[in-house]
């Protein structure tokens, strides 16, 4: 019985964990500007992240170590360092954006300026980080994040013309006044927002810390194959409600308040309250997970002890890195830099780092000396190669598109 319970929890937290500040911003922006014309990107993201999360989980099950531990020996010390420094910079931006997301949710509930909430949010994150065990943390915020499903309900409540939605989803090209460059820019942004490496990390460390064995593989696969597609559905719902409420009116999404607004239109006050709780939980959970993922990245590159498995004093350098990163992100948020702009820049750079994170996982999953009978089969390899090819293209196009479209404005 308890196994079934734990398994459901894992799937549910995968759904809640799929959405973070990047999705809240990028999905709503895309929905308002392009309708569902970028819906196929969510499909690609879900396939990509499922494929690599499954691989990472399988490596963890086989070796009893997180997948990234073997990354440095495959990428080499030099490339590994490059990837590490890049992901540290991107994470600092992302944590700043997620922290601001927590503060913006609190602002919506209280009408008190978000900058006043930022230090409080950081303190709250620090307390939770310091005291709660990893699994409990993950579960609580994953489950609270399920309140985001209110966006799916809102699609029905808004009584859309379904044929318009379908037609939009079946048209993979920019709407009239938009350029192809802008369209492609948002492809990059959506990929960066939806294929977040910490989702892969979540499965890898989750598998190690719950001491999964090869016989638990089926459970892991169900978590991946149910959790992520449902998370993708949530992302599509955010795009759809923004399309229905904003597209005709010509509204450009520039605030989290606008992401939540269609829910109020469709489901009224209660819906809005649930959505605000969801935004709070999703950004809070993502802040913790991004911090952890980065702490683990640094610790594993240098081979330090790490993790919530050990108390803070037993993983002193890991704790110092994560707390330092949190402080830096808080300081960045307090500079009044626009969190929405930062989010878009962060997801675009995050997208450009994806090949560095995916390639070592694919390589290790193919190493028969390490993986034995759990090595990749043809399906995982074909999908994995295709996803990496796409992320390499994205990585090359990200910076030029960011400049050319002035961050999606032009």
């Amino acid at each position, binding site marked *: 019985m308890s196994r079934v319970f734990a398994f459901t929890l894992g799937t549910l937290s995968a759904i809640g964990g799929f959405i973070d500040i990047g999705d809240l911003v990028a999905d709503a922006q895309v929905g308002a500007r392009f309708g569902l014309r970028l819906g196929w990107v969510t499909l690609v993201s879900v396939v990509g992240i499922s494929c690599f999360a499954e691989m990472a989980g399988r490596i963890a099950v086989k070796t009893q170590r997180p997948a990234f531990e073997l990354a440095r020996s*495959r990428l*080499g010390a030099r490339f590994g360092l490059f990837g590490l420094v890049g992901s540290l910079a991107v994470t600092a931006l992302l944590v700043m954006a997620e922290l601001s997301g927590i503060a913006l949710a609190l602002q919506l509930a209280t009408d008190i300026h978000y900058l006043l909430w930022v230090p409080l949010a950081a303190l709250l994150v620090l307390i939770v980080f310091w005291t709660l065990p990893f699994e409990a943390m993950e579960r609580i915020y994953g489950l609270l994040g399920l309140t985001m499903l209110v966006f799916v309900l809102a699609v029905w409540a808004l009584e859309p013309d379904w044929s318009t939605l379908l037609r939009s989803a079946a048209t993979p090209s920019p709407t009239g006044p938009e350029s192809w460059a802008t369209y492609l820019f948002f492809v990059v942004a959506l990929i960066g927002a939806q294929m977040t490496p910490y989702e892969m990390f979540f499965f890898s460390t989750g598998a190690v810390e719950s001491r999964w064995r090869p016989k638990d593989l089926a459970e892991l696969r169900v978590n991946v194959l149910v959790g992520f597609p449902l998370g993708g559905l949530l992302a599509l719902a955010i795009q759809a409600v923004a399309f229905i409420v904003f597209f005709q009116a010509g509204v450009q999404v520039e605030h989290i308040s606008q992401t939540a607004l269609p829910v109020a239109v469709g489901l009224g006050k209660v819906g809005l309250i649930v959505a605000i709780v969801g935004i709070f939980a999703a950004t809070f959970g993502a802040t913790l997970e991004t911090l952890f993922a980065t702490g683990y990245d640094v610790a594993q590159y240098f081979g330090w002890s790490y993790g919530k498995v050990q108390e803070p004093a037993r993983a002193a350098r890991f704790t110092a890195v994560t707390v330092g990163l949190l402080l830096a992100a808080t300081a960045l948020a307090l500079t009044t830099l626009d969190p929405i702009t930062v989010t878009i820049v962060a997801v675009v750079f995050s997208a450009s780092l994806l090949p560095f994170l995916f390639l070592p996982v*694919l*390589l290790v999953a*193919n*190493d*028969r*000396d*390490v993986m034995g009978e759990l*090595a*990749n089969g*043809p399906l995982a*390899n*074909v999908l*994995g*190669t295709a996803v990496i090819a796409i992320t390499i293209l994205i990585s090359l196009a990200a910076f030029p598109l960011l400049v050319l479209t002035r961050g999606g404005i032009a």
Partner: protein
Amino acid sequence: MRLSEVMKATVIDRSGRSLGPVRDIRLATNTYEVIGVVVGAGPFARAAHAWGYAEGRAEGPWLLKMLTRRAVRQARFAASGQVADWGPEEIRLNVELAELTPLMEALRR
């Protein structure tokens, strides 16, 4: 002498021809003695050796196996007995390139 220095060294054969950088170093399992060095040219040679294709421990994904195939075939093993001088910057062999065993054959033994 550091292991990383040997890894960076260039291998020269008896006639003074450069065989490129050391791609890998083979160690005896229990004594950690260097039993030889691996050399090899060809496209994607770095990837072929760093990612386990030359050693035969990785078979996929298909695309990478195909890209590294020629480099894998060109990988040669120089046993420690065939090394005349261990460097530091250049490793000199006392044999010609043609006398070296293909890596795959050396591993099978």
